[in-house]
């Protein structure tokens, strides 16, 4: 099942229109969070993430591992607009993109060499090289705001939230392609990732084409105003899920 087909699946319990125009679901109780996390675990199972060399566990074990994190995840203070998100920090984003079956347009080689977690993050955030679960706001309400201006806010609220990274953005695209895909969503937008830098003055964003078949990571200056893109952010806390051999 490709990204477009998944974007077309709609489950009223968990798949309300996301984004600032369409309204947000609120994961205020554990049952709703469980349903959403289970849905995400199912997507990763179907895409075969459990078979990746850096995971290497059975599909059932992967699901159990992820579902075991839900009670602790629910305890983490988060915004009502935040979405639970399962991320594979140990798998490079290019390899994750290939697992989705979409056509993937990678960052040009010279820019790829400059990619790192945002170095000015006051808590020195580093993307964990493991599976983790966290809460993310997709950036729909930040559309038209520059990455630079959102980073400024994040510096003031660094104890609470961090900029979403390339890994978070890829995870969001895999489990919520409808946010990016204009065919089926009124609230479509690109997702800027202020938690990753491409050199000091550039940041990446994740984009999906209109048909949900062509996935790309674009790099742009942090002071560029893009009315169709918004910066995603995550709660600072996360649940890391070590995979025992």
């Amino acid at each position, binding site marked *: 099942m490709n990204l477009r087909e998944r974007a077309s699946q709609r489950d009223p319990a968990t798949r309300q229109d996301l984004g*600032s125009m369409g*309204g947000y679901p609120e994961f205020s109780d554990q049952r709703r969070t469980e349903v959403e996390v289970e849905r995400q675990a199912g997507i990763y199972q179907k895409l075969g993430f459990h078979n990746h060399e850096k995971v290497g566990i059975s599909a059932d074990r992967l699901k159990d591992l992820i579902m075991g994190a839900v009670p602790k995840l629910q305890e983490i203070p988060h915004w*009502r*607009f935040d979405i639970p998100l399962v991320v594979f920090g140990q798998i490079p984003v290019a390899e994750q993109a290939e697992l989705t079956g979409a056509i993937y347009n990678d960052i040009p080689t010279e820019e790829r060499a400059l990619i790192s977690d945002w170095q000015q993050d006051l808590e020195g955030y580093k993307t964990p090289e493991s599976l983790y679960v966290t809460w993310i706001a997709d950036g729909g309400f*930040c559309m*038209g705001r520059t990455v630079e*201006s959102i980073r400024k*806010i994040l510096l003031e609220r660094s104890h609470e939230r961090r900029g979403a990274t390339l890994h978070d953005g890829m995870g969001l695209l895999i489990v919520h392609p409808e946010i990016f895909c204009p065919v089926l969503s009124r609230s479509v937008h690109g997702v800027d990732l202020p938690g990753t830098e491409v050199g000091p003055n550039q940041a990446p964003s994740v984009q999906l084409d209109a048909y949900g078949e062509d996935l790309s990571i674009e790099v742009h200056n942090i002071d560029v*105003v893009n*009315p169709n893109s918004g910066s995603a952010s995550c709660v600072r806390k996360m649940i890391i899920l070590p995979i025992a051999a």
Partner: protein
Amino acid sequence: MREAQTRLYLSQRSVGKPVSEPQVDTLQGELDVRKRNLVKEMKKGSPTPELLTRYWQAVYDADGKKAEFSVVVPPCDWSEKQLETLTAQGGRLVFVPDELTMPDGLGILQRMYPELGNFTMRDGMLITQERSGGGWIGVESDIDAPLRNSSDDAAREIYGFLGLQGQRLSTYIIASLDSWRLTGDLFDYRTESRLIDSRCGEKYAYASFPDNDRNFLRINLAMPGDSYPYVGTRSEESRPE
């Protein structure tokens, strides 16, 4: 016969006999014309700070005269770059005089725009605005309410992060009429906007123009915490640093 009638009419005019001609308030007419000309300029898009200042001065000169309300609009303090960013965010700049945010501000607006109906009171109580103080304020230009299907608490979390504040009823009316002048549409003819900084007792004011007609501004009241698919929340943004 017809010729004789014409001669009689002209002779009556020349001696000052009563002839039915409309009484025109020349000053009001001039102010309205000036406002209309500036609306035309604004419709071209990408207004400069200087044009915004002239436009809003013309709006308050023309509309305020009916209520004997006058204000000197200070020069717009948003830079062109800030205006460009606001537009990219789907926003628009309006000028809200301090007086219209004070306790009797809604009463002044009522006199300026009597066609809107009585929006100052509901359930026998005055609608109050939580904050006073106006100026150049960025608002969403969306016709449909933003942040629909979400609670007031959810909106407050986002506003806290982005440094926004809840919209007040006076700002809503001024911005909605601005939208009508520039686009032909009032706010919320398909939706309803929760104005979290305008209340009537414990309840929030919910505003809409359900018929997309200036003759009907509907104000409903509801307790905090409710969320509906057709109800959103609007904000106000001060000039960024």
